[in-house]
């Protein structure tokens, strides 16, 4: 009581650098700075080296006229367009072959995967032979096979295989008549979009009604009717504004019409068949992963093989199938760069090949191409992850 000071415990304040939180933040900031400085140094070093050797840098070359022709282009292109345009042409060609390849490979892969599990011995064996053969031969060899096998057997333009005067097949390509839409056709386009939107709404309504009352609705056929019927009605209402541009042999080659070049056909075939073999195995693994009890329960309920697969097995198998399927899609998109071997004008062949060699700016061009492939692959995998999350079964 003499000295009225309360007994305060001696709190020794530890220096802040012993605090674990402060330390962890400090080291992370230091690491980030080091990494940033590393990349900055590499970047600056490259620029200094390029300049001292007299190699031009920068992205100004993208505005210069290209001066060379490209075999196939989805947008308008001739040699007076710029190098930036060749980038777009190559990019669209790559996206085209990847998208078509993914579509065909998925369908084919699912069919063959299911076929391999069939109780019909012949079908199962044929599917096995397909998978084992195509999985084990390098893709480049398969591409060369399809390209040179296709080329050697097709006739020259003067002796084309033809269906009437409208479809022609020769070693320069497959020629189809091109539709030429006149002024009223945009209404049909709007009707098509409307049909698709209405079908989506219908599907949603039908699935909600199924959840609540258990009554099914023929969504597929009514959707088909909407998507096909509405545009057709609009089309004829506008007086059928469509003429056809027929391919005709003039001199060396056919002019007019739409041409599917043999390079595209060969590349698409090779990519799809190769990737389908891998997808078949993934699908088979997914189906086998679903416990056999599910099949037995479905049988006990009286479901036949087809509906069992469609309603019970595949929805559960999709959980297992989708992640490796994403990898196969990415592989297909990247393997499309093998197009340079046969002269299909994809991004690598046109931009990283010809444009790089004409301008000499290797660093910028390779960086742009790598960025494109990275973006494409990231988009595919983001979409598939979103789809996977949607399909994931919520367990109790």
């Amino acid at each position: 009581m003499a000295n009225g000071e309360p007994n305060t415990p001696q709190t020794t304040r530890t220096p802040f650098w012993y605090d674990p939180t402060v330390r962890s933040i400090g080291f992370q900031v230091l690491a980030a700075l080091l990494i940033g400085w590393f990349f900055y140094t590499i970047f600056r070093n490259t620029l200094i080296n390029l300049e001292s050797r007299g190699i031009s840098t920068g992205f100004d070359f993208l505005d210069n006229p290209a001066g060379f022709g490209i075999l196939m282009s989805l947008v308008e292109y001739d040699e007076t367009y710029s190098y930036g345009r060749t980038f777009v042409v190559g990019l669209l060609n790559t996206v085209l072959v990847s998208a078509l390849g993914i579509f065909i490979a998925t369908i084919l892969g699912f069919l063959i995967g299911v076929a391999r599990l069939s109780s019909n011995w012949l079908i199962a064996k044929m599917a096995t032979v397909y998978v084992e053969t195509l999985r084990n031969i390098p893709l480049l060899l398969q591409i060369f096979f399809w390209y040179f096998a296709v080329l050697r057997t097709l006739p020259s333009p003067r002796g084309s295989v033809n269906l009437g005067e409208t479809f022609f097949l020769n070693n320069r390509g497959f020629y189809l008549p091109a539709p030429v839409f006149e002024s009223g056709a945009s209404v049909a386009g709007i009707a098509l979009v409307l049909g698709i939107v209405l079908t989506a709404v219908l599907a949603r309504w039908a699935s909600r009604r199924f959840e609540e009352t258990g009554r099914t609705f023929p969504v597929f056929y009514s959707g088909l009717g909407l998507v096909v019927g509405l545009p057709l009605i609009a089309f004829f209402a506008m007086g059928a504004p469509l003429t056809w541009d027929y391919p005709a042999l003039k001199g060396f080659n056919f002019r007019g019409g739409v041409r599917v070049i043999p390079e595209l056909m060969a590349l698409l075939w090779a990519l799809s068949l190769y990737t389908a073999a891998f997808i078949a195995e993934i699908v088979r693994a997914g189906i086998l992963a679903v416990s056999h009890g599910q099949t037995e329960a479905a049988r006990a309920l009286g479901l036949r093989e087809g509906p069992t697969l469609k309603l019970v097995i595949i929805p559960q198998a999709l959980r297992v199938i989708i992640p490796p399927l994403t990898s196969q899609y990415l592989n297909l998109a990247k393997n499309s760069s093998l197009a340079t071997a046969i002269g299909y004008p994809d991004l690598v062949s046109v931009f990283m090949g010809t444009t790089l060699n004409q301008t000499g700016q290797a660093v910028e061009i390779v960086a742009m191409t790598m960025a494109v492939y990275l973006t494409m692959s990231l988009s595919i995998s983001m979409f598939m992850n979103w789809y996977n999350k949607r399909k994931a079964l919520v367990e109790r």
Partner: protein
Amino acid sequence: MKTFGVIAATCATLALATAAHAATLDDVKANGVLSCGVSTGLPGFSNPNDKNEWSGLDVDVCRAVAAAVLGDASKVKYVPLTAKERFTALQSGEIDMLSRNTTWTHTRDTSLGLNFAGVNYYDGQGFMVTKALGVSSAKELDGASVCIQAGTTTELNLADYFRANNMQYSAVVFDTSDQTVKGFEAGRCDILTSDQSQLYALRTKLADPSTAIVLPEVISKEPLGPVVRQGDDAWFNIVKWSLFAMVNAEEMGITSANVDEMKTSTNPAIARFVGTEGDAGAKLGLGADWAAMIIKQVGNYGEAFERNVGMDTPLQISRGLNALWSKGGIQYAPPIR
């Protein structure tokens, strides 16, 4: 703490890394071998035989430089390159010089950081078609498909020519000249276009060379020559003057057979050439007998031409533009004095 020190030291070294000024002559002498970029196989210019021995007009330029610098024309490492990767290989230092029937153009000279060390073959671009098409002139080729090699001036000249003549074409682009020949033979395209010398060389690779003809039109100038990196003037001079030495030797009548006796000649021009007078070799940083070594081991320009692409070879190319200036051509070398 120790690992941190190692990391810090590595980062510091990376930060200080700058472009090393290429002293290619010293590098070649230290390695004892000349690294020369050539094509993947073009008869007459750079072609390996079944024992992987290379021969051709471009190969002879490499051998000449090796003879001048290292004293032995066989001390060359040949690096086969496609048209797409040839400049990158030279820029990055993978090869010391590029002798690969490369056309000297403005863009290549200015924006790639390279120097052209002369012209060893004056050429032009032409077309090859099958006789069965019944075409006799390039102006009749509207709408044709054309097989080309990627990354060459051929693509650009073709576009210019067809545009100037209001004709259309579709380009089928391959990576190597072998693939273009395969595509042409398979009938994928009507025309094969390239430098005329290449067309004659590629025609020998066809299964039946007599079915193809080379059209008479020459649609561009294609001066082909060796290439080196910018920023190394000493090496540039060596390659340039090795080529000039071969042309000068033909002008002075010095051949691989008589170069030894020419060493005793009293003609001042010949004495300066073989090195018994003057110090032309020392000014290049080479020995006094640099030019004599070239002629002894490789021959003069005329000998190299006749041996590789002349009338006795399957290519049967006449001297034409590539004759000496005094004989109606335009091969002209500055004097060695």
